[in-house]
Every structure is written in structure tokens, then in C-alpha cells.
């Protein structure tokens, strides 16, 4: 017996001075294998073509459709309605600038933090010789790098972060994960000191309060909290490198890579 779903959707158009933030109810019949992607598109096509929300790949790979679903940030495309009660409440992700209704501007936000951490492999591009074979890499390391590169920047971890809600300049778990990705990549020639300049402050790793919300809501199940721990340890060891003997430092430094649990 299919249910009649009650979707309550946040509505607000910041460009319209007459628009007042409010919740609006819509009702749709549930089908087998229905996802929020299907339900929201039905609403737009059959009830209110003005509702703003974002989908792109609709397959959990692009990260467009992050929203707060019954109080929890998640990707709407791979949220099946059968896993939710028949009353579904949808809000836009907090922290990011609201474009309208459920749509927020994650693009500008991620571009800005990308600039702050210089999110590219710092290597000598002029050294590339088309005639040479590629530099070698261990497959296990390539897999580790991709493990962190899988982030789709949906913004769910930022939206679920207590610090990010309190301070605008906090870079958040996705960004620290990105730094960790470059840190383990031997092609990136930055030193520990360089990384310290980027995230060794309370806008970076030291701002985290350890609430673990980021990892709980990550739709790609990226080990965000581990990355934060690893980056913190790297920075901590770097800051005592003049004090502790090198042998001890080396032992500590080599303990732990991206998957090691703390």
C-alpha cells in the first residue's frame, strides 16, 4: 500500500522584497524506489514550477543536491523516501549563501577555500617532458590519494559542523580533507611548514571542536575525522621539531597514514 507523502519545503526568494521565509506543504503519492529527486521533480512539474532546488547527476556523484532532510544534511538524490517517515521536512543547507528555497551557493564557498589552501599539486609543470614515461607511483598510494579525492564537495560536512555555524572563516572538514590529499601526494612539493601556514590555526585544524558531525553525515563515507587527526599530529610534531630528538619524531611521523585509526 503506497503512502501519501507530506513534503514540507522551505520557501524564500531573497530577490523578491515581498517574499517572506516560510514552510510550504506539498503532497505526493509514493512509488516503489522513489527518491527525493523523483518527489521534488514531480512537485516542480505538476504543482509548483517555481520551487528552487539543485540536481545534476542525480546519481550521488556530483554533490549538487545537498539539503537538510528531516534535520540531517544529506544528498537528496540517494535518499529513498521509504527510509523516511511520511512527513518529510526539507531545508537548505546552512552556512552557505541562500540562492532561493532549497538552493545554496556552494560553488563560491568552495572556490574561496580552494584559493586559501592553494588546492593544487605544487609541482614544476615546466618539468613535464612528453617523451618521457610517467613518474612511477605505488598503486596502494594512488588508491589512498583517490580515497580522499572522492569528495564531491556537497557541503553536508560543513553544514553539520558546529564551528562552521559559529565562524565564517572556518575551513571545515572537506577542506582539511583536501589538504590531507595533497599532503600524502609525493608530487606535491610543499613542506610541513608550508602546510602549517595554511591550516595550522583555528580557521583550520585547531578550530575543530571534535563533534564528529562531519563524518557522520558524509554521503561518500570519507574518513574525515581521521584526516583531521593526521593533519593535527603532523602540525603538532612540526611545531616541536626543534625540541624532540629526530629519531623519536621520525618514529611518530611514520606512524599513521590516511586510513590508520586513532
Amino acid at each position, binding site marked *: 500500500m503506497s503512502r501519501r507523502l507530506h513534503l514540507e519545503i522551505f520557501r524564500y526568494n531573497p530577490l523578491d522584497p515581498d517574499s517572506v521565509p516560510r514552510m510550504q506543504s506539498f503532497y505526493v503519492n509514493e512509488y516503489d524506489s522513489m527518491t527525493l529527486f523523483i518527489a521534488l521533480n514531480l512537485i516542480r512539474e505538476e504543482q509548483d514550477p517555481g*520551487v528552487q532546488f539543485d540536481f545534476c547527476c542525480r546519481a550521488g556523484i556530483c554533490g549538487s543536491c545537498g539539503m537538510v532532510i528531516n534535520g540531517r544534511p544529506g544528498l537528496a538524490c540517494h535518499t529513498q523516501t521509504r527510509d523516511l517517515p511520511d512527513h518529510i521536512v526539507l531545508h537548505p543547507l546552512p552556512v552557505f549563501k541562500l540562492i532561493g528555497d532549497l538552493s545554496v551557493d556552494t560553488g563560491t564557498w568552495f572556490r574561496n577555500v580552494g584559493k586559501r589552501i592553494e588546492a593544487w599539486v605544487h609541482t614544476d609543470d615546466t618539468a613535464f617532458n612528453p617523451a618521457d614515461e610517467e613518474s*612511477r607511483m605505488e*598503486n596502494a598510494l594512488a588508491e589512498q590519494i583517490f580515497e580522499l579525492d572522492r569528495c564531491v564537495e556537497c557541503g553536508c560536512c560543513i553544514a553539520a559542523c558546529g564551528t562552521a555555524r559559529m565562524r565564517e572563516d572556518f575551513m571545515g572538514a572537506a577542506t582539511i580533507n583536501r589538504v590531507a590529499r595533497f599532503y600524502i601526494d609525493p608530487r606535491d612539493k610543499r613542506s610541513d611548514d608550508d602546510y602549517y601556514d595554511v591550516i595550522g590555526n583555528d580557521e583550520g585544524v585547531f578550530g575543530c571542536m571534535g563533534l564528529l558531525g562531519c563524518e557522520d553525515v558524509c554521503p561518500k563515507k570519507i574518513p574525515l575525522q581521521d584526516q583531521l587527526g593526521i593533519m593535527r599530529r603532523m602540525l603538532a610534531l612540526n611545531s616541536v621539531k626543534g625540541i624532540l630528538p629526530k629519531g623519536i619524531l621520525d618514529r611518530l611521523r611514520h606512524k599513521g597514514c590516511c586510513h590508520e585509526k586513532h
Partner: protein
Amino acid sequence: MQIFHTDLLCIGAGLAGERVAVEAAMAGFGVTCLSIVPPRRSHSSAAQGGMQAALGNAVMGKGDSPDVHFADTVKGSDWGCDQEVARIFADTAPIVMREMAHWGVPWNRVVAGTHTYYKGGKPFEAEEAADKHGLIHARAFGGTAKWRTCYTADGTGRAVLNTLDTKCLQYGVSIHDRTQAEALIHDGTRCMGAIVRCLKTGQLMAYLARATLIATGGYGRIYRATTNAVICDGGGQIIALDTGLVPMGNMEAVQFHPTGTVPTDILVTEGCRGDGGTLLDVNGYRFMPDYEPDKAELASRDVVSRRMIEHMRKGFGVPSPYGEHLWLDIRHLGERHITTKLREVYDICTNFLGVDPIHQLIPVRPTHHYSMGGVRVDKSGAAYGLSGLFSAGESACWDMHGFNRLGGNSLAETVVAGSYIGKQVVQFLQGTEVDFSSAAIRNAHSKVAERIARIESNGRSGENCFTLRNAMQDVMMEHVGIFRNEADLTAGVEKLQTLLERSANIGLQAPSRGFTPEMSMALRLPGMLKLALCTAYGALMRTESRGAHTREDYPERNDRDWLNRTLAYWAEGETLPTLKYEDASPYFEIPPGDRGYGGGKIIPADLPPEKLTVPGRPAPHTATPEKQ
């Protein structure tokens, strides 16, 4: 109206757009990329499988070379491709993959020693050479003689797009996301940029550029069941076609992918079959070896898709509330393989279908997947008809795919064409200056502004754009699908013409201030209908079967009459495109022959000897494709 100036305007910021952008930015030019979504959300991110390049590092790729890759590509295209371009592509691909490795792509690498691989569902052991340890590995894909597809687990698109996006950041490429180009600015001979709608505010803006690149991907959303992202609505092709000067190439060449999932039409990668997955029917019987004894599941996509439909028509489909389907079986690959090498597949099955592929079969059916057609460009990526306009990637008909592209060749095309065409764009920019004409800007702007005003004034009494879109998508599925014939196509063309006429009266059901998503669809739809008509009408006129274009009433490949490329122009006010034809290839390094799979009769062409000579080479090249 806000006006932006730049050297190069890239419309689209997926893999092809960003690769061209990086090339121009590294050469010191100012580049602005427009994108409907933030670049990392581009449909390129969804590509799982990999990129073909003849590196020959993996043991199963031993003996591979650009020559073999070239031959596979030509055969895959069913001799519909431009062989000069296919040659450029095959020769350039290895260099570009190595360059991507240098820039940060975590390609999977060769691990020396003995490994268990799968072929046709059966495991076998092979030893990777010690001297190749740590070089880029490759996996098998359909229609290739060697294992040649470079990959990063099953997130190749994601990994390469992330890396390219970081290069854009590094070299200062400006990204203007949530923007949509609505018209090209041109004076009849030269392109000067585009009129662009902001998808946050609804405002129109002008972007003036010395060179303009269209890299907006495919237009799969003219079909109902498509693996394409919801943004793949043909925006780039539409603004080019609307000039009346730039033709679309080979629009009837539409590829269906064998393994779209049911009911969501999400693609599961060909890597499943490459790694040893098999197709089963309602009785759990593996039927592909009966049709294709040599290649079975790894015949090219058009062949596998047709065999699946053929088998279902014989009554072996699995009934379901969403229509008939078949099964994809990867259970024998085991939990470790499925949850690492095919993790996205695992996630898609569990998240979207409620199926556990380690223990259960995956429901699949052929689904629209790729558009071989697009903005017709020459080998340097320059569009026909307007100087200063380029196109690369799926939006273009460059034309290395001909009538059917091989898996792993489109993702490779994005960066290989991006790199090659990027260099041509740089050369163009180095030798060109533009006087921007205020009349041209005003003309382009007023055309778009008038359309918006008309849609707004029609209001609720106008046509509903979603109703029209759904009708168009159904016509395309029903009349312009995998199997085609004159009666269906004729009816399809007529229905599409009626929809195009109705689309002139679209109105808004929910008007609101600022940005409205309904307006985006309303503005897009007449152009989508034109693309649909180019596809349907081109298919009606092409009375042969070649690659993915299959006419039930003309089952043979007719090289005598149809060894050519369709060019579709759209004159303003018409309800049908004007079709012209040009030679498929300037010369045939590999003379037309049998693909070695798929069967079918060939009516041979009588080609003059000069067409079989490669310019710059002393004697006619005799490389014939290996029999597979």
C-alpha cells in the same frame, strides 16, 4: 547590462572546457569559464570507467600502440569517423595521460607479480612485468584489441576533473558558475562571445571574447531514459545552431549504453563487463556468446545494446513494473573486487536500487547514453561557419567517433581534444584581434530579452514547458530509438514539428521575481526540439545502418551512398533542418572493411586511389585491421 571581457570564453567547465581553459591560461591568456553548476559538479564527474590511451604498460596491453588504438577507433566508428582526427587522437592520448599524472591524477598503477583477472566471466592469471611496476595500469573495455583504458578505481571522471579544476585555480581561470549562455554574439562571420543568463538572479549579461569555446557536453535530455545528467540539455549546440551558420554533424548517431539501471537510468560502468561481468536473461541464461561468439559481452556498445533488445523481443526479458529488462551479473567477482574496483557500482546498486550486487543480480536495459553528433568542427576544433568559435568534447562533432564510439574514448577525448584544441586556440589568440561590434551585442541581447518578455507575457495561458518536454522525450524514445524505420521516423518528425510550433507559445505557470527555474526550461525547450528534429530527420534521411544508427528497413551498411557525414543547418523560422553532406574522412588510412563483430552486410564503396593515400606518406598505407 553588465559586460565582461576576456581572451577566451569557455562555455562549459567540464573536462573538455577546463582542459582548453588550462592550456590557454598557461599560455598567459585571460580565460573565463561559464558553467551551469560549479565545475566539479559537471557531468564529467560521473564518468566511472576510464580513458583509452595506448601506453601498453599492463600485461594485457602488451604490444599496444597508437596504431592499434587508431584501428580500434576506426572500426568502432564503423568507418564513419574522420581518420585524420582519429589519428591525432590516438597519437596524442598517451602523452596527455602522462601529463595528467604529472598534474596529480591518482591513476591506478601496475603492481608487479601474478594477478587474477577476468575475461568473459572466467578468471585467469597473468603476470605484470617487474619493469612496469608503478606505471599507469589499464583495464579492458568493449571493442578494443588490448587492455588500454587508464582508470582511477571507478571514479576516473571525478579524479581527472578534480585535478583539472585545481589547475584552473592555480592558473587563475575565472569561473562564473550558475550561468547559462543563451545566444552567441556574432556579426555573421565572426563570433565575439555570448549573451549569458545568471542562474542566481535571472539577469542577462554580455561576455565579450576574442575566442569562444563550446564545451557543454551532450544533449541526452531530449530522450526520456538517459544516463545524462539533468544539465545535459544541449545548451551549447542550441546557441550554435541558432546562428543559422554553424551546422551540427551526424546528429542521427546516438549511442545507447547496454547497462542503464532500471528504473533510475543511472549508468553502471562498462568496467563491470570489462572486469568479467555477464548478461543474463529471464532464465538466468548467458545469451551474449550465442550472438557474438568471440567478443560476447565485450562487443562494442551498439552491438551489445541491439543484441539485448533482440533477445528481449524473443521473449527472454524480465518483466517488471517499469518495463522489461535483463540482468547484469557481477556476483562472481567477489566482495573485495566489487567494493574496491567497482565501488561506485556497489554504491549505485545499494543506494538507488536496493540491490546488493555481491549477492544479487542488477536489473539493466539499454539506455540513451552518448551523442556522437554535435557542433561540427574541423581538426583544429574550429566550428564551421563562424571564425573564433571552437568546440571540444561531447558537444562537438570533431569527429573521431563516427557512428559509434568505444567506451573509454569519450572521456579520453575530453582531455586529449582539450589539450590539442587548446593549443590551436592559443595559436588563434596569438594571431587575432577583434573589434567588438555594439550592433552585434545589441542584436544578440535583444533576441534573448524579447524571448524572455514573450514567455513572461504569455503567463499561465501559454503552453506548459514541462508538458512539452515530456512529450518530446517520449517521441524520441518511441520513434528515434535503437531500431529505426521509415514509418516511425516520419511520424516522429511530424510530432516534433508540432511540438516545436507549440513551443513558440510557452508561458510561465509560476512567475516570480529574479531567477526562476521554469524560465530556464522555457528558454531551453525550442532549441532542444530543434536538436531532436536534427536527430530524427537525419535518421530518416540516412537509409542505411551504420554503427549505432540501425534502420530495420535498410539493414546493410551502405558505403557506396552513405560513407559521409550529415551536416544539419537551421534557418530561422523553419520547422526542419537543412541537410547537407560531406565526406566522412579526407582519406582512409584504413579502407572501409568489416568490424569483426556485429554482423551485417556491407555495400562497398568504389574509392579512388587518392582517397586511400595518407598525405605525407610515400605509398598507400596497407595497415588493415587485425581480425579479432
